[in-house]
């Protein structure tokens, strides 16, 4: 008899390993009238850093929200830290959460959120990798000496971490962008 614990209908098998996210080639209709097209599959692997690079309105945030997030939200083989763009509402949510679990903490800005996330993660002793998704963060706070693998995926117009693999978003027209991996960030290298 099949063990139902391993046949959860809502748990999709998107991944190819712990802390990895596989995004297959194809068209992703992320919102009405806008499509992201991947000609080739992209695999986000633990231990690597990915820079989502492209002009405003090219679909970086939509890719995070509609593609990556939907693939990772049901996963239990990794932890996820996501810092949203223009995160004022997220700040309120974090303050409410911190008031319960870390009542002595003080959440003022984005850096405090990062610090609290890493503090909370340090309590987990299971060694699972962590996927960090940051959308236009003002500060990227990644602690040194973390005893777990990180898959860092960030979009930014001001940061270009030297070890980043670029994932480029190139608008074709107002309703479509091409998404592909590249060796370097085109936008910031210009």
């Amino acid at each position: 008899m099949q063990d139902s614990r391993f046949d959860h209908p809502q748990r999709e098998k998107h991944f190819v390993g712990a802390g990895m996210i596989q995004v297959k080639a194809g068209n992703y209709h992320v919102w009405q009238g806008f499509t992201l097209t991947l000609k080739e599959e992209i695999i986000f692997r633990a231990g690597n850093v990915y820079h989502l690079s492209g002009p405003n309105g090219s679909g970086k945030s939509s890719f995070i929200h509609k593609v990556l997030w939907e693939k990772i939200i049901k996963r239990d083989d990794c932890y996820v830290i996501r810092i949203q763009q223009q995160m004022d509402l997220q700040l309120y949510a974090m303050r409410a959460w911190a008031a319960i679990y870390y009542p002595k903490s003080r959440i003022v800005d984005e850096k405090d959120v990062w610090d609290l996330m890493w503090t909370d993660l340090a309590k987990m002793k299971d060694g699972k990798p962590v996927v960090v998704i940051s959308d236009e963060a003002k500060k990227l706070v990644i602690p040194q000496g973390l005893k777990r693998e990180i898959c860092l995926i960030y979009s930014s117009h001001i940061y270009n971490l030297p070890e980043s693999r670029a994932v480029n978003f190139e608008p074709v027209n107002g309703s479509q962008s091409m998404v592909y991996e590249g060796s370097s960030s085109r936008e910031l290298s210009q």
Partner: protein
Amino acid sequence: MIPKALLYMDIMHDYLIADAEHPLICSDKLWDEMLLYNINPAAADRLYRDFRAICKKEVSADSSLKELSGGQKVILMALLALHSPADSISFINLEHSLDPGRFCKIRDLIIHSGKNILWERA
């Protein structure tokens, strides 16, 4: 006629704050946001034109603000401030959410606006 209460407030010398971390106040139609900025019909037309030139995207009073990307919201905030009657504007972290090309375009508009501008980084 200016309400008496306003005479006691130093509003004429205050800066309109345009913070890229909180670009828009309303979440429904552009019309609502234009009301807050006191944008008149002629200024609205200039705003639509500038937004189209910078973002290659059409907007109107009926446009849903939810359909804009984060960077487009920041550009819209800057244009709303520029086309509002405010003489003094404080832009905070404006370059943070914009790609280099669009930041240069909006910066040029700001510089040539003839308004009293403060550039701030939080």
